[in-house]
């Protein structure tokens, strides 16, 4: 307890974040083994991990680096497809955890390379122009992936942009990516445990980066680029560092996503998916890693919880999105909430809460 108090505030806060993830894992595992968890909930565990990783990695770009990106799904798809191709060709024959880990690594590296290639030109732009260019890149990746045909036979890989007949595969050759249909009939590999490990890894990378010298340099660029440059910080290098890390993690999340289902198509990775992840980041609090985790989990489950509403499901979801946004971000509402809080804290029970809150505010 004593050591907990003397610990650095950021370290303590980080431990809480790891604790939430591990606690979630333990509770879910207990529920599963007790047979208390519905199929629907069990099926959502891996996607939740995927979106948590995506949200945390996007928060690195949007919150820590301060650049709006609308093309996160592009990195996700680059990772998903490269990882899945590796998995279909080689990974299936390996022990599942090793195959999955290698596929993720490959997916991450490929996405990271994309991040590098895209980052160099793109990071020169600012604000909304950067946003539209990342959106454009995401759409380009999707559009090209939609047209790719990839086959595999004893001579190696065959590639075409027209149709599967143009691959000229030998007898016994196999079409891996079949254009818009994508990859079908994959063996599934992703598990909840793998997902949680990836989440922890992501947190480890991002939280350490944020609290490191490099992280402080990145945030200084966000807060004032010119001042940062003047103090001798290599702006391009640090921007790229954040951007590539973000892409790398998104690529790994893509592999987790891809190997959770037996089919993979490029159509999924359009700007709507990018925007969905951005919604998680903004609702969880820009720059707030823990917020991203919680928002991604809650908002992913929400539309599924609304299934009972039938036709009105997506309508209600949209309204909740708007209302939460206003409740959370509107200056007037925030002020009003503070007022209400003030009044409530005259009552005994709430006084205690307020005290706790004050403490935690001191930390942050």
């Amino acid at each position, binding site marked *: 307890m004593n050591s907990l108090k003397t610990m650095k505030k950021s370290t303590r806060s980080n431990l809480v974040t790891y604790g939430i993830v591990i606690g979630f894992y333990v509770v879910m595992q207990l529920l599963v083994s007790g047979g208390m968890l519905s199929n*629907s909930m069990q*099926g959502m565990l891996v996607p939740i991990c995927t979106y948590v990783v995506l949200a945390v990695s996007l928060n690195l770009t949007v919150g820590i680096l301060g650049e709006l990106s609308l093309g996160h799904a592009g990195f996700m798809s680059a990772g998903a497809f490269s990882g899945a191709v590796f998995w279909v060709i080689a990974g299936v024959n390996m022990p599942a955890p090793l195959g999955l880990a290698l596929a993720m690594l490959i997916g991450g590296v490929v996405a990271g390379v994309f991040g590098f290639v895209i980052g160099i030109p793109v990071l020169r732009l600012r604000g909304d122009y950067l946003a539209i260019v990342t959106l454009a890149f995401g759409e380009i990746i999707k559009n090209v992936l939609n047209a790719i045909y990839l086959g595999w036979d004893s001579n190696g890989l065959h590639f075409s942009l027209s149709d599967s007949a143009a691959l000229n595969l030998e007898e016994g050759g196999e079409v891996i990516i079949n*254009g818009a*249909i994508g990859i079908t*009939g994959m063996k599934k590999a992703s598990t909840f445990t793998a997902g949680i490990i990836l989440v922890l890894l992501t947190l480890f990378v991002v939280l350490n980066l944020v609290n490191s010298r490099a992280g402080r340099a990145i945030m200084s660029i966000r807060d004032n680029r010119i001042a940062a440059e003047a103090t001798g910080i290599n702006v391009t290098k640090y921007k790229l560092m954040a951007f590539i890390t973000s892409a790398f993690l998104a690529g790994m999340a893509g592999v987790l996503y891809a190997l959770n289902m037996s089919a993979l198509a490029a159509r999924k990775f359009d700007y709507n998916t990018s925007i969905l992840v951005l919604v998680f980041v903004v609702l969880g609090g820009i720059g707030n890693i823990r917020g991203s985790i919680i928002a991604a989990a809650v908002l992913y*489950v929400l539309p599924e919880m609304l299934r*009972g509403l*039938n036709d009105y499901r997506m309508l209600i979801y949209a309204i909740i999105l708007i209302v939460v946004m206003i409740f959370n971000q509107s200056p007037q509402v925030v002020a009003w*909430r503070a007022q209400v809080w003030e009044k409530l804290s005259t009552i005994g029970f709430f006084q205690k809460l307020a005290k706790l809150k004050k403490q935690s505010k001191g930390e942050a």
Partner: protein
Amino acid sequence: MKKALSLVLAAAMAFSFAACGGSTSTAGTSAAGSSGTASTGAASAGTSTGSASGAAIKIGGIGPLTGGAAIYGNAVMNGAKLAVEEINAQGGLQFELNFQDDENDSEKALNAYNTLKDWGMQVLLGTVTTQPCLTIAPETASDNIFLLTPSASATEVIQEDNAFQVCFTDPNQGVASADYIADNGLATKIAIIYDSSDAYSSGIREKFVEEAAAKGLEIVADEAFTSDNKTDFSVQVQKAKSSGAELVFLPIYYSEANLIIQEMNRQGCTAQVFGCDGLDGLLTIDGADTSLFEGVMLLTPFAADAQDEKTQNFVAKYQEQFGDIPNQFAADAYDGVYAILAACEQAGVTADMDASTICDMLKGAMPQITLDGLTGDGMKWEATGEVNKAPRAVKIVNGAYSAM
């Protein structure tokens, strides 16, 4: 303030998990989904009768009810609902239908599938669209749940032995179309306009090209479009026109075909138009100038204005309940439910059996049944899951289908 929010969110999450974990089979049972159209309180009879008697076979349905493909999912849901109502009214085996939205997205389809499993689904009617079905079919195979898709037409969908189709497979249609064109001497120079981002369309096109080469037809233009870019067809039509094509083959759905035909009219392109079952629905588009569709030929198993009693009955009931004229998707779904009924009766399935037993019995029964449905007389199924029915070639004359 962020802390406060994360507190609230965390509480919400805890609540949602609790709700989720606790209510494994109660949540969304009555979610048979009412239609998005102006149905006057047409609460699904499947739900009410089924839950009342308590001994109904639970049929799950999955398809897009919202988003860009919502039209197909809603048609299937309505068609299936109608069939379930009729069957329940007859007495005998009772069905209960629960239709879930997948937004035409594999991931959402998987969630919908899991939700249906929690509900206690015994048979799956779905999914409606091909892409999600490629994800769901392997799941049903490993869970051993019987799958009958009304409209997902790729051959990959029925790879497993528990999966059956009501619609034709894509290669079948491609081959049949090329054969029909060649055998009847409709044209020798052919232009194709297809949706390369759609499994249905590119599947038909691939086989069509192969068969056309074998039959000596010449493909003079082969133009693609994508689902993101499907409003402007000026280039595709112009290429077809300048290539001197005598016939334009459209293995696509009718809403895009409507645009292509209008564009052809605008550019003065007089080639004939030939399509597959996706074109059914052209005549019922709200507000369309049907005079433009004169002479369009299509291979379709269903025609809403067919004169037989069964079709007329179906169309009248559908219009009364949902306010629209049914398309081929609705008819496929309607036939699908009756196929399940026939197979259940054949195998002696009762509502108290578990999904896996039912699946094994239906697998054996499907190849034995013969169904006179809306989409074909004497429909039979192969053990592979493929359906045998004769495609009918029809031509639009005076705003109605007429047999060719």
